[in-house]
Structure formats: C-alpha cells, structure tokens
C-alpha cells in the first residue's frame, strides 16, 4: 500500500485545495504522471505522482482544503495485491494534535484549527503551534482573494528567509558586447518563433558556473547544506495580476540554448496561465531573477528558502568602459549574488560571479 500525500510545493505552502482528480480508482499510473490539480496560495499546480502503481482509493474530494502531508489517495504498488481497502473512519476524522502541542497552544492562546500540521502522520506539533503564533493572529479579517493569499505566502517565505538566512551580497559588472553580438548573429537567420533571448544565455551561464560552485546550488535543511546534483533553476516570473512565482527549469546545465528557450517560453506561459507542475514548484535549487527589463541597474534579491542563493541581473545598458587604456562604450549588465553565509563565504561567492562573468564572454561555448 502506497500513501500518496499532498507534497509541499514550496517553503510558503502549508495547505492546498484539491481542485480536480485526473485519475480514478483502478487506474494504473506511472511515475511523473499528473494525477491531481491542487490550488496553492500561488497557483493551480498539476501534482505528479512519484511512483508507479494502481490507484486504490481517493481519500480527499475536490473542493477540500487539506494540510501538506495529508494522504490524498492510496495506491497499490505494481504487483501488490489490491487488498481490502483499509477501514476509514467516517468523514471528518479527528485531527491529530500532540499533547505537548495542545499544551503549548493553550499557553500561547493559539487557535489549533488554524495551525497547519507538519508532524508525523499529519499531527500538529509544538513547532507548528509556535510557528503559527509567530505569524498569525491578525486583529481583523484580512482582505481575501487570490492576490491577498499570494501576498501572504510571499510574506511568510520572505520573512522566514530574512529571519533565518544570513544573506551576503556581491555584484559584478559584466561586459555584454560579445554576448549581444553573438545573440544578434544567432538570431539573424532564425524565424521569429525560434529566436533566443539573453535570458536563455544567462540561465545557461549560471548553470555552468554552478558546476564549479556547488555550494550555491541546493537546500539548507535541518541545520545542514544538501547540495543538489543538478541545476534546477527557479525563474522568477512576475504575474500580471501582481505577485511572483519562481518555478524551475530542470537540468539547465544539460540543455541546449534552443531547448532552454523553448522551456522558458513554455514555463512563462504556463505560470501566467496558472498551470504549473508540482515538480516545478518544489525542485528549484537556486533562483535567477531579472529586473533589468523594468529598468533597474541591479537587483539584490531575497533567497527563497530552503535554497541558498539567488542570482540577479539588471538592465543591459551602455556605459563608459576602460579597456586597454582607452575609454570605450560598452553594453554592461550588473550581475549580483545573494548567498547564504551559513553555506558559503564571500570568497567563493566572488569566484562564482567571476566565473559567471567569464562564461558570458564566451557565448559560443554556452
């Protein structure tokens, strides 16, 4: 028997609303298949199953909002006999709350119904209560609606980031003459539908630089850094109705620029249409943000926990540039790094940015 639980789709998610099941009992599912659509505070997400199996029972109905970790469905593993479905208590099962959490909630005056559970078996733990007492108890009803919810989610994640992560910031002007010329040439012969954007080059360069600086790529969890094997780069995408989302492009280092461009186009489209996949939400190992389009010279970002770094790009603009003893005019972009000082030091961060700058000078190698 396999329990399919509601996954956490980011540090700021503690519950989700099931919108739709894409499978029915008896269906055979393959790892990676989209089996449900779940509404988080940020987007409707296509949730993928992480193993092969046969759907046995759907335990949560569309419309229900449940905490992360709730068993959504049971499956039998391939080859496992579909035994009698376990006896389930009638609707509304009693919510597990540990005795210590109950005691603590009373001390802090926290309403247990409003606490999201993360403990074993979906139980509310002391930590859950203490977290809730930190962030909730608004005196009056907050404005409702999607935008307000997303604002709240961003607030929680960014507050946690600034509370827990000792950020350090570095920046470096990157000459863009080579990259711009290379890009113009590469796009010259291409039909408009396959043209590349500078963003694709930047993403690829970041992924390549990460290979030499693995301490910028991964998660800080439970007091230790867990480096990631591949660069799944979260791309910060602002939404037209307000708010922000940073879903991942997987394995950026292994993809061609053309593939990256296709993925990026598709990701932006789906992010704005609100149809992202769960792995895109939970997998980013680093985030890249580009605010140059909005006209700023540089961006110093806030790391999205549990990630440990964020790379920012500003506007590409022409600046006076001293080169071989002569001042020339050079298109330049300021690349910046916000990194977690628990994991890396400024020295390594500086080397990372220098590597990124150098990679941008060899666009043909990307």
């Amino acid at each position, binding site marked *: 028997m396999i329990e399919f639980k509601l996954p956490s789709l980011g540090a700021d998610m503690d519950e989700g609303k099931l919108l739709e099941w894409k499978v029915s009992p008896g269906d055979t599912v393959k790892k990676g298949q989209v089996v449900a659509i779940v509404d988080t505070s940020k987007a409707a997400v296509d949730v993928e199953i992480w193993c092969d199996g046969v759907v046995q029972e759907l335990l949560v109905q569309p419309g229900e909002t449940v905490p992360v970790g709730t068993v959504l469905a049971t499956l039998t593993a391939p080859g496992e006999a579909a035994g009698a479905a376990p006896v389930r208590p009638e609707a509304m099962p009693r919510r597990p709350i540990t005795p210590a959490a109950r005691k603590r909630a009373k001390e802090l005056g926290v309403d247990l119904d409003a606490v999201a559970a993360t403990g074993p078996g979906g139980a509310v733990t002391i930590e859950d209560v203490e977290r809730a007492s930190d962030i909730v108890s608004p005196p009056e009803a907050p404005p409702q609606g999607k935008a307000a919810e997303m604002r709240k989610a961003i607030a929680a994640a960014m507050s946690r980031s600034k509370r827990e992560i000792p950020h350090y910031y570095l920046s470096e002007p990157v000459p863009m003459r080579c990259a711009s010329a290379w890009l*113009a040439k590469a*796009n*010259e012969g291409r*039909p*408009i*539908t396959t*043209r590349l*954007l*500078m*963003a694709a080059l930047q993403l690829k360069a970041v992924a390549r630089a990460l290979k030499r600086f693995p301490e910028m790529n991964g998660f800080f969890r439970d007091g230790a850094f867990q480096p990631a094997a591949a660069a799944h780069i979260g791309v910060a995408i602002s939404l*037209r*109705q307000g708010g922000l989302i940073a879903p991942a492009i997987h394995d950026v280092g292994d993809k061609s620029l053309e593939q990256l461009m296709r993925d*990026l*186009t598709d990701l*932006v*489209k789906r992010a704005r249409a609100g149809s992202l996949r769960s792995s895109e939400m939970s997998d980013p190992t680093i985030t890249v943000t*580009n605010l140059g*389009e*909005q006209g700023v010279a540089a961006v110093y970002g806030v790391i999205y926990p549990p990630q440990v770094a964020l790379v920012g790009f500003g506007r590409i603009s022409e600046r006076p540039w001293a080169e071989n003893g002569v001042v020339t005019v050079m298109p330049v972009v300021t690349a910046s790094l916000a990194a977690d000082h628990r994991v890396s030091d400024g020295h390594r961060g500086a080397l990372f940015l220098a590597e990124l700058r150098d990679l941008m000078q060899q666009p043909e190698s990307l």
Partner: protein
Amino acid sequence: MEEQELRAVVVATLKSIAPEVDESDLRPDRPLRNQVDLDSMDWLNFLIGLHEKLKVEIPEADYARLVTLGDVLDYLKAKLK
C-alpha cells in the same frame, strides 16, 4: 488592410499578452514598453503574435525601430503593402 483594422489586430495581440491594457489609455506617440509592462519575453510573444496573424517577417535588427504604437503600425503598414 485598413488602418483601423490593423490597429485592432495589434491591440488584440497586445491584450492577449497584457490583458489589463485599456486601449483608450494607449498613446501612439509614447514608447509602448513604458506604457505597458512588457518584458523581453512578452515583447517577443507580442511580435510572434503579429507574425502569426499578419504573416510578416520581423527581423531582430528591426526591433530598434519599433518603439511606439505608431512605429509598430507604420512598420506593419509598410510591410503589408
């Protein structure tokens, strides 16, 4: 294609990318990307949309000429002749 018709196509394409756009607020003589929050991905998608609807080629080298809504309309008019 009549000028009015062309303008309708361009505005519709723009709205497919930026649904919040109010046509009456668009000034034809001001840089379009200042009036509408379009990043380079949006801009590319806008041009792809025009390319698909009007079957015109828009080389990257011409991007610099497409600043205002008026520029875009003039450019397309010339291409469609």
